[in-house]
């Protein structure tokens, strides 16, 4: 067809158009069917999956963290509680410009560089749509500023949170411990569900030991949120279960007095309720404020704590290991009597030194001027005046094995099992121990050193207190405990089945000797006994930090204070019906009698007055020399 000359034919034109239109119409129907098929596929075949997605979009499960258990002392004074604080956090996914947002926040409230750096660190660990904290403990003013500007700050959340608080500050830092932010190492161990919504965990002390009980059970909330994360309504709610409250054996008043008594000295005091093993006071000086750790301690504060010469972070009560020195003499004396290495009538002459056959170097008596304690030194006198030479003699006769084996009953050489972590085991040397740790045989010289609590022997203040309590209770083996009751349920004392069995006469002999340490004119602790209105039993100790040659005198002016002797004291009271036992160590305090015993007196005075064990009754009992009416006294003690 020649298009240049011919006109188009309307019939053919229309036919061609109808052809085209029919083809297009077919295409339209087919494509429409494809569309419907697509929608049917989504709405019928994949319906269930998409319902799940849309529910996931809509419904979010929010954790309701439980409130952590409160810790009380025995009188119900709060040692650890929860205070509400408000924190500023950001949900990264809800903001388009994170850095810009932080810059904007920085203009509104005070944000330190540290806050921002820590925020970015946390952000790396956070899950999608999780609130990442930026600043803790907002002031009221800051909260108000943020509330006013809320509409500008997409993705910012101010939330109230319970924060751990220790009202007694440094007083119980080592015992109660503290909580801190969960770190990477801990995050791999904990149950992510139980800790959702909780960002801190017990780091030390009771807070760590009783973490499982204190934490409580997490609750949750199913909430409907819109795309911006705003909660539209709560669909379902499971209340959290608060953590268990702990009531301790500790007595805040005693603790306070003991803590104060240390002044600027370094050292530790542990006081135990003899019948239950409950720890009534546990001081490690110097101490620190645990509140600093709760929201994350700054690097500067932390290193200054670590580098402080007094080592405040170090829990001396359970981690400090010291030679027990003369405080161990009553125990070894008792073992000597029981093993019949000596008798009550055994007496020696003390020239001021002791010579072992075949060894050139003599052992000196640390507790006497030149010339020694003289003639007729028996066990009682050796305890009262702390004569070393008597114990050298006895030690050689008794032998290492008897000393080591029997000491175990008194908690020496192994952890006592107290309910806070990190306890050191101390060293109760034996032949076996020396072979293992030093690769050498045991020598008599080792026995002689050990018989006065020096040489290899090391104890923690807690072990000393436990030893004292077991001496006082005549061999009853009670484990020391801090927690008295959990949620009001009394925890029964843990008593080991096998008591240390000894002749009653020997027990009384040792007890009396210990009483005379304090209450006789020649006793090493007579200075505290003078004005005491009740009777106690005690023993002083002076532990050498550096060894002094036998022919030299200890001269403190030649030594740095860090090399001065440690001062020790153990004791129990009241003498007639022992209720409380304590052990004290004052680092580089020189003499047990002058540095440690006065602290004991202050604590025991407070104990006797507050527990209403009046001295009239005691002295009356003591005068008549009757066997102590235990039940009567016990009932008095209750009041």
């Amino acid at each position: 067809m020649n298009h240049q000359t011919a006109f188009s034919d309307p019939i053919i034109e229309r036919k061609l158009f109808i052809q085209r239109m029919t083809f297009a119409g077919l295409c339209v129907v087919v494509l429409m069917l494809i569309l419907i098929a697509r929608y049917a596929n989504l709405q019928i075949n994949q319906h269930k999956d998409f319902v799940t997605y849309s529910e996931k979009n809509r419904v979010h499960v929010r954790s309701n963290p439980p409130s952590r258990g409160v810790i009380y002392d025995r009188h119900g004074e709060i040692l650890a509680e929860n205070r509400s604080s408000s924190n500023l956090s950001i949900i990264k996914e809800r903001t388009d410009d994170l850095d810009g947002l932080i810059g904007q926040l920085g203009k509104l409230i005070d944000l330190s560089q540290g806050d921002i750096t820590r925020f970015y660190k946390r952000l790396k660990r956070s899950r999608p749509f999780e609130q990442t904290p930026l600043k803790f403990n907002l002031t009221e003013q800051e909260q108000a500023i943020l509330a006013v500007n809320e509409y500008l700050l997409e993705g910012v959340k101010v939330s109230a949170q319970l924060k751990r608080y220790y009202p007694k500050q440094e007083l119980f830092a080592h015992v109660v411990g503290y909580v801190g932010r969960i770190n990477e190492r801990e995050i791999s161990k904990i149950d992510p569900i139980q800790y959702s919504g909780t960002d801190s965990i017990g780091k030390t002390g009771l807070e760590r030991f009783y973490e499982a009980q204190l934490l409580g059970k997490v609750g949750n909330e199913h909430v409907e949120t819109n795309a911006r994360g705003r909660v539209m309504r709560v669909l379902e709610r499971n209340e959290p279960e608060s953590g268990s409250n702990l009531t301790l054996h500790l007595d805040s008043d005693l603790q306070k007095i003991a803590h104060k008594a240390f002044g600027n000295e370094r050292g530790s005091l542990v006081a135990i309720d003899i019948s239950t093993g409950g720890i009534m006071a546990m001081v490690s000086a110097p101490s620190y404020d645990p509140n600093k750790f709760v929201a994350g301690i700054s690097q500067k504060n932390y290193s200054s704590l670590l580098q402080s010469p007094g080592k405040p972070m170090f829990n001396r009560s359970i981690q400090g290991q010291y030679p027990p020195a003369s405080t161990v003499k009553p125990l070894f004396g008792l073992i000597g009597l029981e093993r019949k290495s000596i008798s009550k009538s055994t007496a020696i002459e003390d020239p001021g030194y002791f010579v072992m056959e075949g060894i050139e170097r003599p052992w000196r008596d640390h507790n006497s001027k030149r010339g020694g304690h003289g003639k007729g030194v028996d066990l009682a006198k050796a305890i009262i005046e702390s004569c070393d030479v008597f114990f050298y003699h006895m030690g050689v006769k008794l032998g290492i094995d008897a000393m080591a084996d029997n000491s175990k009953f008194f908690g020496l050489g192994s952890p006592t099992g107290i309910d806070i972590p990190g306890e050191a085991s101390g060293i109760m040397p034996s032949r076996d121990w020396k072979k293992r740790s030093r690769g050498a045989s045991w020598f008599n010289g080792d026995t002689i050193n050990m018989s006065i609590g020096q040489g290899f022997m090391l104890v923690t203040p807690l072990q000393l207190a436990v030893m004292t309590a077991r001496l006082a209770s005549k061999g009853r083996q009670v484990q020391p405990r801090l927690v008295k009751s959990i949620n009001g349920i009394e925890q029964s004392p843990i008593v080991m089945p096998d008591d240390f069995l000894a002749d009653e006469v020997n027990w009384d002999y040792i007890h009396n000797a210990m009483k005379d340490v304090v209450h006789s004119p020649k006793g090493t602790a007579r200075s505290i006994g003078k004005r005491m209105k009740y009777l106690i039993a005690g023993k002083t100790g002076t532990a050498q930090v550096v060894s002094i040659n036998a022919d030299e005198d200890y001269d403190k002016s030649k030594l740095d204070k860090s090399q001065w002797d440690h001062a020790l004291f153990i004791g129990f009271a009241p003498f007639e019906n022992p209720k409380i036992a304590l052990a004290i160590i004052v680092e580089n305090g020189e003499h047990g009698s002058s540095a440690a015993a006065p602290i004991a007196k202050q604590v025991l005075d407070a104990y006797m007055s507050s527990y209403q064990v009046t001295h009239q009754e005691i002295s009356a009992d003591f005068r008549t020399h009757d066997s102590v009416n235990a039940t009567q006294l016990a009932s008095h003690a209750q009041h």
Partner: protein
Amino acid sequence: MHSTDFVRRFRSPGGDRKITRRINIDFSLLLLLLFLCAFGLLVLYSAGGQDFFYVKRQLVFMAIGITIMLVIAQFPVRFWERWAFIFYGLGLLLLLSVLLFGVGAKGAQRWLDIGFTRLQPAEFMKICVPLMISAYLGKRFSPPIPKHVFWSAVMILLPTLLIVRQPDLGTSILVFTSGFLALFLAGLRKRYLISSVFLALASMPILWLFVLREYQKQRILTLLSPEADRLGAGWNIVQSKTAIGSGGLNGKGWTEGTQSQLNFLPESHTDFIIAVLAEEFGLLGVILLCITYLLIIGRCAFISINAQTQFGRILSGSLGLTFFVYIFVNMGMVSGILPVVGAPLPIISYGGTALLTLFIGFGLLMSISSEPRQIRTQL
């Protein structure tokens, strides 16, 4: 009479034309459109957060649109044929001025601020281009000879490229398609059809490398795997598919769609409104909508087949098919079988310019449908 007019007109036998014919209204088309408007407002109320804000504005646009449609229907087809090139030229000028003085958002320059409102001239090209092509080819031979095909192609590509420059890929594709469909209905020979398909395929790598912008490429990649970036580029598609899928057969009920009511669905009152409809009215709602659309398109086909002139045929046919292309692009994009381009769902989506354009188109269709019957005679 114009010299190129080769047909004589007669009144239809009996002269008893129906009243609807006399007032130039295609009653069935009007009824279908009104139903669609009502359905659209219902969905829009829910999609707009159960607020009358968008509904009121949309209602005003609809009233204006329907009025314009009825006015246009009163003009004889010849008027539109004769003035087609004026409208087309005006449209081109507007497009040029958008490039020069336009205002825009998000890096695109699409609107002309004319004081009381903003105009999107590219929208009107969806009408002007088929109008122009129909007018140009309607007077010429069918099937068109190469020279006419060439000039038609120029007339289609000129506005298309101008719109690509804005950039507005979605509208430019629709404008191109509307012109191409007119060309197709005019009887474009199969060899041109086949070669244009090959040309399109061959130009794809060039488009990818030189024309498409980064965000546009991203959209295509997102189509292929929306789950790869659930919170970023894939968010829209994942959320709209979730809305559609969770609607099921019967839907969650009007204003009960959680995806849309809780704002998980982006652009829920404009381009993604079909997801709201699908979520709340289910597959049954979608099918009802599709049937309504098909009936409208069917009516357009009927009008085109019965049109008295080649111009009327091509124009009404291409407008009807373009209408379907809008539907397909939008519903395909929201359900995740086509890449995301800015394309509203006809009549249902909120948007004034799109509504006006559609009603102008339907006005032309009504004008064609009420054209007096002619007896064709070869001169």
